[in-house]
């Protein structure tokens, strides 16, 4: 009898012990025409952002995984090279590192309102990588500071309307679904 809980526990964790076993398959919807780097999924898994080479310039590209179609970006067809894309829960916000002149900077495109939110770091510090929280309340930036990498967190809640899982929004302008 004392073995019963042990057996049950083993059965429950079995799929994970087979760690090894569930063979991950390549999902359909890959885009084989050109090289793709730095994938970023939206929280709901519907949208995929990647960096592709566009006329020699690394450019962020956003696709709907279900239809496979490209989603136009208002502010991100320039200021290349782009890197380190990151999406919120439903993909309303796309954050990416861009370049203006000789400076690297983070930019968040709000696909619902069409606004761009540039984020410049002072002190000649350029962002290297970023991560947007799923609800878009916070942004983490990797920067170089005095010869080593640091991560800094920014509070976006005073600027961006938070996103929630499942398409919930605090307000939902009609017909403006990203």
């Amino acid at each position, binding site marked *: 009898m004392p073995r019963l809980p042990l057996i049950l526990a083993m059965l429950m*964790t079995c799929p994970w012990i087979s760690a090894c076993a569930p063979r991950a398959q390549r999902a359909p919807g890959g885009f084989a025409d050109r090289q793709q780097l730095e994938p970023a999924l939206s929280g709901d898994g519907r949208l995929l952002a990647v960096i592709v080479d566009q006329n020699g310039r690394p450019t962020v590209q956003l696709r709907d995984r279900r239809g496979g179609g490209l989603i136009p970006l208002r502010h991100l067809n320039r200021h290349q090279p782009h890197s380190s894309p990151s999406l919120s829960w439903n993909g309303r916000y796309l954050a990416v590192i861009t370049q203006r002149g000789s400076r690297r900077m983070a930019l968040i495109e709000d696909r619902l309102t069409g606004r761009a*939110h540039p984020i410049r770091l002072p002190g000649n510090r350029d962002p290297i990588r970023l991560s947007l929280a799923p609800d878009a309340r916070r942004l983490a930036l990797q920067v170089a500071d005095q010869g080593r*990498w640091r991560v800094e967190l920014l509070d976006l809640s005073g600027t961006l309307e938070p996103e929630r899982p499942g398409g919930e929004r605090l307000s939902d302008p009609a017909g403006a679904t990203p």
Partner: protein
Amino acid sequence: MNWIRAGCCCMAGLMLSACSPDGIRPLSDLNGRLASSGEARRDPSLAQEWLATLSSRSGRERIELINLRSGQPTPTPGLNRADAQPVSISLSGDGERLALVRQRDGETELMLYRRSLGLMQQLELNPRGVPRQVSLDGSGKLLAVQVSRGGRWEVDLIPLP
């Protein structure tokens, strides 16, 4: 030294806020805690209440999971190995799952870690390739991974149990 570091952090915070007319502000308390740990950090991945980074001290990198409410690292048994070098990390929305690419014994491995179980699972690529960078969706049940195959970078989408 700590007060010098703290002073630098405050100055950086003030400068940052001064440059954010948009209402975007540094999270000074959390940034101060991250800086005061004395560790270099890169490759951040944010979940709702968690931050994962690759942090290094004395040149050795490890994955650190920080609770954003307390600002403190949380134990992650089985996540880091002395013989493995993490390359890329990504958290699910609730911080329960963490996908990672790591190098060990000359091999590049794609892994999934479940925090509540302390369990690490190796994922296979089909067709075979060398993983480089990962992104989990919010549920942690869909993984996008940048893979090198035949000298080309591709992106695989992998549904997870």
